[in-house]
């Protein structure tokens, strides 16, 4: 790992964390009036994968999309404005937190029907292949989504046509409050993908270096026409399924488990490692935090100053 890459990985994770913590802090003001799913604690997967991509590569995501969108380079102003329901939001206020898009950086769309975007990503990869383009497509989804039939339809079709697509399963063990062992038999998710004839691997999703190296290997193979690939990463959701708060009081997971989950913080782990290897210094980290905080403050100011769309703004674009 070179210094530039280490810097990028740490910066990108810190930036996502900082943005989401700011969203959480301001959510109670009731200016952001949309459901919001934070990825705090899970940043390494978005960042490790996105750093292995080119801008021309495409990405689709789901309801918990902030990290993916930001890691791919999606506009922060357009994202915050979207959460605030403003006209300059990435969907002009039509979508909210669960509808992220930034075509300029290949972020094709994120929507909240679980499994809904998985076949779209397959179609994106299919189009790239038919158009003889070299870009690849990444789709992020969770362990709950893996229970959707359409995911298996998508895996089958992608494997059948050797499509240049990287399936990334973020396994945080929970669908809302329901643990995976109440929803799935005891077997590894990535091996089901392997049984579809797809090259698969799994690893610790809170180890950004590992995520990056597995993604890099898969993407290199995809570019050579050897798709598809499936990566499963284990991780841990720190906060409630939907909303800005912690939900430890609900006691659906015990405190030991929560402590262990937070102890595996991808940002702290990577910071520690980078500091001890000398690839990052404390002042690097401080400078990152300073830059990020200025950028985040500006994005909130931008959103709050932006126009609120009216009913007339909601009328166009029913048809293209």
């Amino acid at each position, binding site marked *: 790992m070179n210094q530039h890459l280490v810097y990028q990985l740490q910066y990108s994770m810190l930036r996502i964390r900082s943005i989401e913590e700011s969203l959480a802090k301001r959510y109670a003001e009731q200016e952001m009036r949309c459901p919001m799913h934070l990825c705090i604690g899970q940043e390494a997967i978005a960042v490790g994968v996105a750093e292995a991509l080119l801008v021309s590569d495409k990405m689709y995501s789901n309801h918990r999309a902030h990290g993916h969108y930001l890691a791919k380079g999606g506009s922060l102003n357009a994202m915050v404005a979207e959460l605030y329901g403003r006209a300059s939001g990435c*969907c002009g206020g039509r979508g909210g937190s669960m509808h992220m*898009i930034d075509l300029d950086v290949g972020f*094709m769309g994120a*929507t909240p029907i679980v499994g809904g975007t998985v076949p779209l990503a397959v*179609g994106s990869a299919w*189009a790239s292949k*038919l*158009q003889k383009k070299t870009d690849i497509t990444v789709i992020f989804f969770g362990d709950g989504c893996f229970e959707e039939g359409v995911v298996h339809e998508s895996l089958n079709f992608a494997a059948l046509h050797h499509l240049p697509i990287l399936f990334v399963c973020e396994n945080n063990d929970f669908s809302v409050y329901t643990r995976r062992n109440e929803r799935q038999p005891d077997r590894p998710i990535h091996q089901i993908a392997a049984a579809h004839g797809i090259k698969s691997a799994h690893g610790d999703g809170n180890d950004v270096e590992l995520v990056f190296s597995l993604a890099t290997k898969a993407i290199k193979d995809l570019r050579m026409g050897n798709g598809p690939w499936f990566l499963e990463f284990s991780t841990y959701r720190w906060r409630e399924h939907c909303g800005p708060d912690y939900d430890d009081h609900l006691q659906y997971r015990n405190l030991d488990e929560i402590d262990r989950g937070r102890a595996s913080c991808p940002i702290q782990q990577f910071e520690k490692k980078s500091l001890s290897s000398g690839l990052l210094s404390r002042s690097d980290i401080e400078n990152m935090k300073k830059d990020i905080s200025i950028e985040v403050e500006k994005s909130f100011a931008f959103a709050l100053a932006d126009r609120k769309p009216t009913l007339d703004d909601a009328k166009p674009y029913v*048809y293209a």
Partner: protein
Amino acid sequence: MSMLNMKTRQISYVEAIREALEQMMQHDESVIVIGEGVPDPKAIFNSTLGLQEKFGKDRVFDMPLSENGITGACIGAAISGMRPVMIHQRIDFALLSLDQIINNAAKWHYMFNGKSKVPLVIRMIIGRGWGQGPQHSQSLQALFSLVPGLKVVMPTTAYDAKGMMVAAIKDNNPVIFLEHRWLHPIVDEVPESMYELPLNKAKIIFEGSDITVAAFSYMTFEALIAVRALHSIMGISVELIDMRSVRPLDSQMVIDSVKKTGRLIVADTAYKTGSIAAELVSQVVERAFKSLKVAPFRICSPDFPTPTAPSMTEYYYPNAVTIADAVLRLLGKDVFAKDCQKLLKALGPKGPHDMPNKDFGGPF
């Protein structure tokens, strides 16, 4: 080729669909075709015959039995610049893909504020007869017409089928293209060259002044038989409108006609409750109430699924007799009078009721 020659060739509805697909694939290399059985020996009732041989396996695909997943893949491909045509041999199979059609295809352009578009055609074939039964013969146009962002068309003639298929493929929106299976063999005059027809316009196919019959898809065919007989036997002048599109619904053409005739019958291929016939009647009543001399009347299938056994289906579907009977009643005729009885008898189906009516094979 002269205009005269262009108009005189007669081909069937299904051949017209095939020709539209072939010409559009020739015209635009982003057009791809996929469906269960597309390249197989039966080639979706011959509507995709020879396409894979001509355009190759990178443009013409069979598909896994994954209606929802492949609809999603077609949407994703469409967002990325392809123009997929997806085909279901029966509309009933498309119900497995409602999530992708309604949540994604219909809304993608809207919810992302016009940034992306989904140029996608989904052909769905409505079955009928020979025991197609509860899950092979539904007419679900009203279901799809509920959804803003979808266009829904159901052409009746081979001429319209070709022109509307070309327009549907060129359109930048998802278009649900509904074909009634009993229309497939009916011939019409179809130009050999590629042409487009609007996806939002009804068409008057028989001008008249006494009463308006607005019909959808195959019911236009039954209505035409009735209208011709009413005209020739009893001198009744019916204005017959082939609706062609379901969403958008060209209610204006019907309103204009009702302003002239004062009477309206809507003949639909679907169940009565919540039908597109109901929507059309509502719009006419809302906007042309004062022009109506009598209450509008709907002719639809009964509100229960299609049974399979022929002894149960014999009186299930309304037909030319049902339509002629309704016309006579709305005009205040005594349907038991001798001439009315003679007319209704003349219209009675000749062959087995669960096979297509051979009285009329086109052209329209």
